[in-house]
């Protein structure tokens, strides 16, 4: 419990920026926000692009051997397409197709988009902290990010996380 205001606290490090990995931090942050928890997400390394004004997260089957490949509709909907991981990840355009399929499936099933979840997090006053060091390394500017993003470093996150009830590295 935060000593400052008696609210529970959730501190998350978001270190991955693919579409599949973008979901957990935003789902947990908005669920915690809905329970009146105080939340901060520290976006670092490949998680940092999730703060960009225009989100472009995609998902790759490469190195994702457990990712089910399913059509979002039609006769193949219930079938796991038996395409070997190594083959599908080497076909040009497969990543774009996998991304489009995942977005379509999520929408059809009623999962909010990353954009919607991020907007809700902003509305709930979730602190969205961009990692300064990652910005310097990969060449991002503050203007690349949504206005609500703040910039900080490891100490900024740790200062918040010191009083957290739940701390997650994603």
């Amino acid at each position: 419990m935060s000593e400052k205001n008696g609210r529970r606290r959730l501190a998350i490090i978001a270190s991955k920026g693919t579409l599949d990995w973008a979901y957990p931090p935003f789902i947990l942050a908005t669920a915690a926000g809905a329970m009146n928890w105080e939340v901060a997400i520290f976006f670092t390394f490949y998680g940092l692009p999730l703060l960009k004004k225009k989100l472009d997260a995609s998902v790759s089957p490469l190195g994702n051997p457990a990712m089910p490949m399913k059509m979002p509709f039609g006769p193949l909907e219930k079938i796991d397409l038996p395409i070997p991981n190594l083959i599908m990840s080497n076909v040009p355009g497969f990543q774009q197709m996998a991304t489009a399929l995942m977005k379509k499936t999520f929408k059809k099933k009623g999962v909010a988009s990353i954009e919607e979840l991020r907007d809700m997090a902003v509305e709930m006053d979730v602190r969205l902290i961009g990692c300064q060091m990652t910005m310097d390394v990969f060449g991002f500017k503050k203007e690349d990010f949504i206005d609500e993003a703040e910039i900080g470093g490891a100490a900024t996150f740790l200062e918040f996380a010191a009083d957290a009830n739940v701390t997650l590295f994603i």
Partner: protein
Amino acid sequence: MADIPIAETLDCSGLLCPMPVVKTNKAIKNLKVGEVLEMIATDPGSIPDMEAWAKQTGHELLEAKEEGGKYRFLIKKTH
């Protein structure tokens, strides 16, 4: 059981986690203390999630049950 007067109904049909709790939390802010919000969902996970949400926020979950493939919740605003 006498009918509980419902101040507002929120339909979360078709929405998955975390939307039912997020929308419920938003909707309950517009109610007065003591008023009851009815929330309808189709996500089976909304039963344990609404119970957890009520415990965390302190609002009172008067009812949580399945009715013909839908889940109906009655939540009383307590603060």
